[in-house]
């Protein structure tokens, strides 16, 4: 059975791009366009990996990250955080408290092959 990936991104271009990339690589895809929707989808879809954009309307990526990492249904799902910010500190600078750090932090624009590689490694493929 194919591994499942949830893409949480407010930009349609990004959802379509990553969706095509992962689907072509053999994964099952779901996507959500904001943090709130993403959190709900994650609980039901139970993906093997979540890619999360950090700056989004409604709930910021940071807030969604905190929820995903706290809720028992989602806290063990690996998360790749996508950010337009160049420095990791810019993301962690905002108070993450005791929450564990993301499994990977990838800067936009992504390097397609490199990104796929990171995703595979995290899922143990």
């Amino acid at each position: 059975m194919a591994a499942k990936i949830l893409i949480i991104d407010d930009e349609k271009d990004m959802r379509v791009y990553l969706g095509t990339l992962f689907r072509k690589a053999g994964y099952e895809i779901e996507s959500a366009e904001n943090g709130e929707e993403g959190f709900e989808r994650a609980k039901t879809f139970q993906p093997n990996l979540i890619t999360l954009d950090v700056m989004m309307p409604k709930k910021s990526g940071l807030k969604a990250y905190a929820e995903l990492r706290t809720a028992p249904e989602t806290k063990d799902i690996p998360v790749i955080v996508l950010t337009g910010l160049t420095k990791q500190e810019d993301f962690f600078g905002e108070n993450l408290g005791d929450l564990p750090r993301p499994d990977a932090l990838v800067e936009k624009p992504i390097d397609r092959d490199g990104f796929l590689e990171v995703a595979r490694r995290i899922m143990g493929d």
Partner: protein
Amino acid sequence: MAYTASALAVTIGLVLAAPHFPPWVLGVALAVYLALVGTLLYRGQRRLFTYAPWRDVMPCLLTVQDADLRIIDSNDRFRDSFGEREGEQCYRVYKQRESPCPECPVIRTFGDGQVHSSEETVIDMAGEVENVVVTSAPLLDDEGKVGAVVEMTTSITDLKTLQDELEQTHRDYKRLFEQVPCHISVIDRDYKVVECNAMYRRDFNVDGNSFCYDACKHRDSPCPKCLVDETFLDGQPHAREETLTTRDRRHIDVVVNTMPVRDANGETTAVVEMFTDITEVKRLQKQLTLMGRAVAGMAHRIKNILMGLEGGIYVVNTGMEEDDRAQISEGWEMVERNVKRVSNLVKDLLYCSKERTPDFHNEVCPHDIVRDVHELYSKRVEDEAIALVMELSDPPHRCTFDPEAIHSLLCNLVGNAIDGCRFDPDESKTTHEIALRCYRDERGSTILEVEDDGVGIPEDMSDKVFEDFFSTKGTEGTGVGLLVVQKVAHEHGGSVTFRSKPGEGTAFKVIIPPAS
């Protein structure tokens, strides 16, 4: 001379009278004559001898003159400079004049028996002109009358030269102090401005009793960490950057330099304070920083657009590989969307560039432009809970506009408003509204307003919106949008203002006066 003449007259008289008088009478007469001559000579010698001991050691030119201003005695120094001139009138000797000098101190001493002095110019044997101070003092005879006058002449040529140089230096210093292109003042221990230059007087309110803190900062008390205080305390120069307020309430950035003014004992009696205006330097510095940030922001935006294009191409290629028309179409839309984003960004950058000249048209109806923008953006938000409402005054008016520029201005404001609504984190707001207004005020100015009830501008960023590469995340605005808005408004002789409250929304107002 007088004595010789009288002695000769008496001798001749005695010889002629001798045959007619007995010898004892002649003897008595001769004795009386000799006694008289002896007494006169003694008196004369005594008078001359009163100054004789110090005549040649005096550090000046010394002459003794009679009532006719003839030189009857002189010292070695005088003779070295003017030669043997006894019997000649002083004015001939000193000035080669034919009559006494006006205000002659010797004449005045003969008149009142007092000491007098004056500054004169004399010409010596070598033809050199000398500045001298002349002092005259009386020589009294036994009856207390002025029998002769001693004239002492001291050269002050070197002193005079030094004095002239000093005066010239003082004038130069004064001119420099006045005209130097920075603010200079002298401050005393009570913070009073005791002296200041023209530029200081031009820019700051000063009268005879002004305090520096009032003049330069409009304060009621001395500034904390005052540099003048520090210099008074340690006698050392100090420097720091400060912001001052001019008499017309402008804020200027300056480098303040303080230096001590010391008295002969080395005590600091006042402090010189000098301001060098660096407002322009600061502005350029800020502009460079902003430009750096703008370039970084721009690079980021371009990177994102490139990723959109790359993604679009990837999706199109995948669709072609899998012969999936729906996917090809989806990928192609991505390409188109990102090409449009590049195009908008480039257009905005061109608006920001100085090279562009506005293309004004007469009889433009701003309502038409507002309708176009409304239609364009209504389509973009039709699937979202954002209502774009249009409020136009009736009847429509016409004015001189660059229609394309005004279109761009409105697109940027509406684009930003949409981003502000999309990124509103307030979950209690289920819908948002953006009002797009156009009307004419009582002065005939065209007012364009875009008001949203979105996220608002954070307070700490509100003073940067027009100067920074202001951009939260968003796909509608290009990031340089507000620079475009401001530039277009200025090109039309107008202005842009905004009010915003975080969490409640933002309203931008563009005022464009009727064309002159």
